[in-house]
């Protein structure tokens, strides 16, 4: 893949999924690697069930503004499937790479029975049609197997790093995880991160 400058990455999901933390972690790794990084967040609803998006602009040349223009995403990391579709509708383009978690967080309209949530097959089909490459990963199920749903975002981070969509590799991210996590949580998070890498490098779960 040709190197984009700026590289525009969107991390999307629902409040409480750890979206903002993942975006910051990516940002810190890339700043340490000598890149200019800007992160813009939609927020306010960040803990309250609303859609949350982080925009990352990564460049060797200059600092960019915190918002990606419409149709301008190169990579979308979706912590929630419906939010991934929402982001593609506004920021997608034929070249985009998508890595999405398969586990829905139901919007109230679905929880109340007023609307239907699209099926996994429907979502996988749309991701395929709207991207150049896409993975649909059962990250929340893997996280629950590992012992905590909260690990979902680290698994997804691993998948993103494993896809080589970012200009930094697993070692740099593991180093940042070691620095930023308390000792008692490190091993489980590293395990989750490596599991995420395998999900895209093992080549079994492409959407």
């Amino acid at each position, binding site marked *: 893949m040709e190197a984009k400058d700026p590289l525009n990455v969107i991390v999307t999901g629902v409040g409480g999924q750890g979206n903002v933390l993942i975006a910051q972690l990516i940002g810190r790794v890339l700043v340490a690697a000598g890149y200019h990084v800007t992160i813009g967040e939609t927020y306010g609803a960040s803990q309250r*069930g609303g859609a949350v998006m982080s925009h990352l602009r990564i460049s060797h040349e200059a600092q960019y503004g915190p918002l990606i223009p419409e149709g301008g995403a190169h990579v979308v990391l979706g912590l929630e499937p419906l939010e991934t579709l929402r982001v593609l509708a506004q920021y*997608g383009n034929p070249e985009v790479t998508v890595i999405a978690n398969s586990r829905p967080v*139901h919007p109230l309209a679905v929880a*109340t029975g007023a609307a239907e949530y699209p099926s996994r097959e429907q979502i996988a089909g749309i991701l395929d049609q709207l991207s150049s490459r896409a993975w649909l990963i059962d990250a929340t199920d893997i996280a629950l197997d590992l012992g905590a749903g909260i690990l979902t975002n680290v698994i997804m981070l691993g998948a993103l790093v494993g896809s080589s969509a970012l200009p930094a590799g697993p070692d740099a991210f593991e180093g940042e995880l070691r620095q930023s996590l308390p000792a008692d949580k490190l091993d489980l998070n590293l395990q989750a991160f490596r599991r995420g890498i395998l999900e895209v490098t093992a080549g079994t779960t492409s959407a």
Partner: protein
Amino acid sequence: MASIATHAPGTDQLLMGNEAIARGALEAGVGFASAYPGTPSSEIIGSLAEAAKDAGIYAEWSVNEKVALETAAAASFAGVRAIAAMKQNGINVASDFLMTLNLTGTNAGLVLVVSDDPSAHSSTNEQDARTIAKWADLPLLEPATFQEAKDMTRWAFDLSEELKTVCLVRGVTRVSHARGDVRLGEPMPPGRASRFAPNSPVQFASIPATLKHSLMHQKLAKAKEIFESSRFNWYAGPEKPELLVVTCGSGWFYSLEAVKVLGKSDSVGILKLGTTWPLPEKLVLERLSQAEKVLVVEEVDAFLENNLKELVGGNLSAVGPLTFYGKGSGHVPSCGEINPDTVVGAMASALGVEKPARPPAYGEKAQSLTGLLTHARVVGFCAGCPHRATFWSLKRALKLDARGGFVTGDIGCYTMALGPTGYFQIKTVQAMGSGTGLASGFGKLGALGFKQPVVAVCGDSTFFHAAIPALINGVYNRSNFTMLVLDNSATAMTGFQPHAGTGTNAMGEPTVAVDIEALCRALGVRVEVTDPFDLRDTTDKLLDLLADEGGVRVLISRRKCQLVRAREEKAPYRMRVDSERCLGDSCGCNRLCTRVFQCPGLTWDSTAGAARIDEVVCSGCGVCADICPASAIVREAA
């Protein structure tokens, strides 16, 4: 983890704009920091409070913005550099003091940061606070980048000290609340002796006001001179541009991007201003005289644009005929945030070229594939939020009371009771404390035939901020209403900051917890306390208080914010739906749990035709077990 005080000088760090402002204050030798939290400004004092011990400074959450500015001014008067930070609504609260502090003047550097919230992502208005700089005759700086957020804040202290006046720094969401890499400088310890020693009887008074007014104008004139050579103002582009863009703050990045997208770096020039009041007139006029078309890019009001037009109006012969593009002409939106796309559109239109777009076939495909599926997510109370339970009981009590009772609202997470997860119970929302002020007024309309019961809701932090005077007003004037204090023991909406009632200060030290209940009792009103998770007791108490007319009465609904609680302890229950007992659509409850109660931890399983717990989202609070008429929702010890 490193704090903003311990990051090494000379390194590049990823900082939020607010953290960069805080670091700039540390590099300026700030000794005193105060604020009332408010998005998007909260992290300024939040990060200074975290760093306070490392840096040897004092930081506080003040009870409201006016007091925050007053405490910071006291430090300045005593020779200590000080910073106060607030959101755009907050500066209104502080403005009574500010409009005399400007006359009074300052001693050590005093910086007032105001962070605006264009599009009101987390606010009840999207006012442009810059107008206050002009109103109050104060110098105004507007950082465009994270680096400038730090460097300008540092400079603002020097400027304030030189001019002996407050220096304003204005952030907006996309500077204050975004993140970018910042090259750090050396922090400076406060290390100054603090002593209050006026050099005249009126040095620290706003009077004689007319004399002080004229001194204030002299300070502003000096600021204008200084701004002419500020390194935060520059021009980049051809000597005689086809289009001159004048921009500040968030508009600068968008303008740069628009020039790149349109490929117009040869014909479009950008005058980037960091000092937007007073304007550096010579610098601006020099650029305007080289242009015929001017596009002004800024967020929210046409503050810069109208000041430019005013300047041009007084210098017509120097600048010649100009066409302005901006908010006045409709090229840049006058409401809501701007973004790269709006600026590309405005620039393309001013230049008379096409705005580039993504392949239309993709856009159409994306819309048609996703449009019907992407239901909007309604912002609402979290799973396990005590507010949901309180509003459930409040709705029931008002219905059972059956006299058309209603709720006046206030500012906090519970403002979301305007919407479905609080059952649309709140009917008014304005400013901090206004719910109680309005209730005090409604409660005096009885003599004019008004018969509806009135309930004012108010959070614990809001209670201290501005509701106390309104409560006392109601007591003194014998008004008739119920005040419902939603005490979740945190300033939850802005990031769980402690407040006067929590027993902890901004720096994490134990302190007095002001007792809301005792304070209300001291006013002579009837006070009840309830646990909102006890739906029956809360409803009964509300009914009793609603009926107890003839004065002000208070119900404190007390339970810790679920998000704070979840950090401290495990969930009390594991919830499940007993599929034998849940009768689904044949129950007759009409899906009370999912359709009406609306907790994100409970969802409707259309395949099974029954309710289902989402174990990832459910917080195990157990309240839903009490609303299921079939007792199908079961609490199990976690």
